[in-house]
């Protein structure tokens, strides 16, 4: 199979139909239309299905490993899998059938290896969701469990295009570039049971369940998924409030300090924290940010994000500066 992401072809190779079918719901939006002319070298992604007795014992205990030559590997035992990336060799994913059936695995297959392959100066995988209205995207940022997936789907039900619920590739693009862009990695969402009920998606058949009992849903058959969009706003998701969620503007440095923590664990394993800091700073310099308290009024949540995107896109068009230090939060 040939996929493409941010202009780079990804050559996916496996002898196992089962393994390919397992990862397909997460990445099938990257397969078509056929890859356009490329910006960089192709990434080779080799997938091997191991037998049930296979355990990654020979690779050492579960954890993350730096490999000579700039590579790295993530070893997991429950269920057993190894994903690795080596510059020049590409991505290797080895797993037993048990792993290919696991919810986390199917939601974000080889996410750390993909992050390592795709990240570099000016381009990083961030721990964020993203949705877009008319090609203008908001990054949905927050710590794990705060409600990124629920917000992303609430927005998608309110008419937004879906780009991701947890991990997205961000291209900061320099001051003379086309502007920050977000690229979709996975067309899946992980939802808690209460969010499944609130969103009214109980009829959707999950493709898996995570150890935290989140249902993994394939999005593409149900809602609009797009591959890339211009980033116009950062939305820092805050704990729930009662009543209508009201966005509050944030200073750039404040936004940067809130975006960094959730993405550092990804960057520390797959690339350079300095490059992550540079990408987040470039983003915060160019894109206005808001703090948005969450609400179970999901219609209001979708409306609030749409309002932020509309205002941010208008502000960027008019080149209005963001609030400076000391501005009321």
């Amino acid at each position, binding site marked *: 199979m040939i996929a493409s992401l941010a202009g780079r072809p990804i050559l996916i190779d496996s002898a196992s139909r089962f393994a390919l079918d397992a990862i397909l719901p997460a990445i099938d939006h990257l397969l078509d239309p056929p890859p356009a002319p490329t910006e960089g070298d192709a990434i080779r992604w080799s997938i091997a299905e191991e037998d049930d007795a296979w355990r990654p014992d*020979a*690779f*050492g*205990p579960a*954890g*993350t*490993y*730096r*490999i*000579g030559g700039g*590579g*790295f*590997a993530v070893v997991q035992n429950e269920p057993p899998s190894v994903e690795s990336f080596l510059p020049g060799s590409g991505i290797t994913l080895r797993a037993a059938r048990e792993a290919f059936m696991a919810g986390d695995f199917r939601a974000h297959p080889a996410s750390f290896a993909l992050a390592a392959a795709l990240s570099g100066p000016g381009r990083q995988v961030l721990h964020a969701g993203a949705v877009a209205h008319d090609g203008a995207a908001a990054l949905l940022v927050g710590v794990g469990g705060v409600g990124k997936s629920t917000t992303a789907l609430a927005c998608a039900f309110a008419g937004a295009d879906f780009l991701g619920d947890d991990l997205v590739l961000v291209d900061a693009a320099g001051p003379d570039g086309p502007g920050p862009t977000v690229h979709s990695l996975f067309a899946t969402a992980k939802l808690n049971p209460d969010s499944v009920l609130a969103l009214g998606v109980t009829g959707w058949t999950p493709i898996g369940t995570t150890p935290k009992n989140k249902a993994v849903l394939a999005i593409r058959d149900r809602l609009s998924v797009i591959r890339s969009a211009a980033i116009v706003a950062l939305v820092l998701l805050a704990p729930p409030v009662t009543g209508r969620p009201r966005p509050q503007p944030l*200073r*750039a*440095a*404040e936004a*940067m*300090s809130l975006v*960094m*923590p959730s993405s*550092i*664990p990804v960057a*520390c*394993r797959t690339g350079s*924290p*300095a490059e992550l*800091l*540079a990408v*987040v*700073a470039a983003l*915060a*310099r160019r894109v206005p940010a808001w703090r948005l308290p969450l609400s179970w009024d999901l219609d209001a949540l979708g409306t609030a994000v749409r309002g932020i995107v509309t205002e941010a896109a208008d502000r960027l068009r008019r080149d209005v500066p963001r609030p*400076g*230090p000391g501005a009321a939060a």
Partner: protein
Amino acid sequence: MHDCLVANSARFPDQTIDDETLLFDAETGQLLLLTGFGSILWSGIGAGVRPTALCEEIGRRFGADAAVASGAFLDDLVAAGILVASQEPAPAEAATPLWPEQFTAPGIERYDDIAKIIAMDPIHDVDATTGWPRVAADKT
């Protein structure tokens, strides 16, 4: 006070936006936000201004207490390994910071929640001689 200081950029990459500076400690995973005059002092040191000259100028503009607070702040950055002594002579005409109208005490806000996460799931180095997949014996 040290004659000349430079940022320890290898351990503490930094970015400044709108007069606010954020640093990341690559060893511990801590995020550090320089508040108040912290970013002014940081940019002055980055421009090659000597610490003594910086504090003297702050004292002349904002008073003796401001100079003392700034000197103590720079000492704190040195103690934390964020600034290190440099043997390089300061530029003959180092760029001076753009001074705000009022002095606000410099400080450091630390965010260490990520440091705890990284400490729980550290990244292992593989053995330099045998290579992957053998974990370095002293790193397990």
